[in-house]
């Protein structure tokens, strides 16, 4: 009898096919879309990326952070610092932001991971506040009131406004694809198994030889680096930075949490579904301002109380679909070639 572990299922094969088709269609979106579409789609991609990263942290590693704005802002400030102080092209500054954020995240992880459960959440928030207050002390980067990206550096990306939009659009698409690929690969690796084991029972995981703290630190640092790269991109597109905008808890954490909860936490498809719902709501309710945030908060609470697995969780329960090949199933095959499948987690 041979034993094999398979990831792909029929629905994930169809799902990946659809993803590939969608990716090709989206890659050439500047050709078929309207003038403003690239910018809107870029924003959608950045939210998918941020929500997917938060989902990795909260939904898979059990680390519920309400302070990921620390890394969005850090990445953004690194981009502006290199651009303004060293004249470095913003495009090069994006990967640099990821590297520096990973280095910064190491000692931070050592501190905040001392706090458990709920206290970890507020600890991460304090770190974000410290970053915001420090940023407002840096007067060469505009202090508390903020600063704009020098026009010469912006023009250096591409001379026409339209081409700049296109290039930024492709960067956003590349970022979100890279983030999703990173998460899929991570979850398929042994670290992914370790993460799920820790989330389900920390004690049992530790008893099976998993270094719980080390696994968490690793995921925290990876998430921080990727979040910083997305943050750097967001503010490259905005062209202006200020501490309050870069470290906004509403924009980079509240929205991201609501997106993930509504879409389905702990599933990779959840943040994608959630972002679509989020933008659909925003396009219809945006004029209402505070009412919009209020509604979003209420919907998220309702989802958490009545359908804690979110929209995608309901779909999985009803149809058993999975878009990304993540579920492990054990396939037993005896000598006569008759196979039997057993589903796993």
């Amino acid at each position, binding site marked *: 009898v041979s034993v094999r572990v398979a990831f792909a299922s029929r629905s994930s094969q169809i799902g990946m096919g659809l993803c590939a088709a969608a990716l090709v269609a989206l890659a050439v979106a500047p050709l078929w879309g309207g003038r403003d579409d690239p910018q809107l789609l870029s924003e959608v991609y950045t939210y998918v990326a941020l929500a997917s990263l938060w989902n990795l942290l909260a939904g898979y590693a059990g680390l519920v952070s309400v302070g990921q704005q620390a890394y969005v802002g850090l990445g953004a400030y690194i981009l502006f610092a290199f651009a303004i102080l060293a004249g470095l092209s913003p495009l090069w500054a994006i990967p640099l932001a990821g590297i520096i954020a990973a280095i910064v995240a190491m000692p931070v992880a050592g501190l905040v991971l001392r706090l458990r459960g709920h206290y970890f959440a507020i600890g991460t928030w304090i770190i974000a506040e410290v970053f915001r207050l420090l940023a407002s002390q840096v007067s060469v980067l505009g202090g508390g009131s903020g600063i704009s990206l020098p026009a010469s550096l912006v023009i250096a990306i591409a001379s026409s406004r339209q081409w700049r939009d296109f290039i930024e659009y492709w960067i956003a698409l590349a970022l979100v694809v890279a983030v999703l690929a990173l998460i899929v690969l991570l979850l398929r690796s042994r670290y992914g198994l370790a993460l799920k084991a820790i989330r389900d029972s920390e004690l049992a995981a530790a008893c099976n030889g998993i270094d719980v703290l080390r696994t968490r630190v690793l995921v925290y640092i990876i998430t921080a680096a990727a979040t910083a790269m997305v943050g750097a991109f967001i503010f490259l597109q905005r062209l202006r930075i200020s501490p309050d905008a870069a470290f906004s808890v509403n924009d980079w954490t509240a929205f991201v949490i609501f997106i993930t909860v509504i879409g389905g*936490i702990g599933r990779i498809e959840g943040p994608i579904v959630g972002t679509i719902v989020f933008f659909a709501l925003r396009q219809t309710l945006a004029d209402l301002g505070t*009412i919009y945030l209020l509604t979003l908060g209420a919907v998220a609470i309702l989802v958490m109380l009545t359908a804690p697995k979110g929209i995608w969780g309901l779909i999985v329960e009803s149809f058993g679909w999975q878009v990304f090949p993540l579920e492990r199933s054990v396939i037993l095959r005896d000598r006569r070639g008759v196979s039997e499948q057993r589903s796993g987690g």
Partner: protein
Amino acid sequence: LERDREAPMIDWINVILQGVLVGGLYAMFAAGLSLIFGVMRLVNIAHGDLIVLAAYVALVTTETLGVGPLTSLALVVPLMAVIGYALQRLVLNRTLGEDLLPPLLVTFGLSVIIQNGLLAVFTADSRKLQAGDIEVATIRVFEGVYVGLLPLLQFAIAVAVIAALQFVFYRTALGRAFRATADSQSVAQLMGLDNRHVFALAMALSLAVVAIAGVFLAVRANFDPAIGPARLIFGFEAVIIGGLGSLWGTLAGGVVLGVAQAIGAHINPGWQLLAGHMAFLVILAVRPEGLFPRART
């Protein structure tokens, strides 16, 4: 000449004294947070926004009834307690369980709802409660060192609140119920306690403390709908600095935080909050169990 040398010294005494007295307010932020964490392992992310909500309730009360802020407590405290009971019974009890995520996300959603609800009703303008002559009254400690009557009263009430909570927690039947459910929910239930009711009472008590804190916050300085999260953070820092699970620890934590902020602000106005956060991070790094952790029995 001698006077010049003494002046900075007096300055520092004043700064530290101010910090200590503000620490009383932070201890009140922290005590409510610590209480419900102790009873039901719930960290209420909306805690700071509930403090601000209490401040607005006091504002409406003083404006419609024409009473002073301290008198308004007679109405604000029971009202917030009722809100706390209902909130726990109707919403938060459903989120409690093994999974940490639901209570965290629901209280986070609640925080956003309260903030934006207040913003919709009261706008973003900052408001303040007027307490009259007591606001400017000062007491001379010795030459050059003065304390305000109001901060002193605030500190005394903070001490009284914590003493009262300590009494309730360790000397009354209600406190016994709190401690029993905290130790083991299932055993407490077997002994005839209704956990849903006990949790709701804990939240009611927590919001009663929140109400007192909210009124003093509103008298002390300007407030607007957006300042809640910072109050949550101050309360949380005081809890961790003082030591998890210790009520008197929250007072010590509040004082340490208040003094750190006062010293930071005295050196450079931009460093007030930063100095407080730094004090918290240093404690977390060198003494993660806090200054006065509850003795394990």
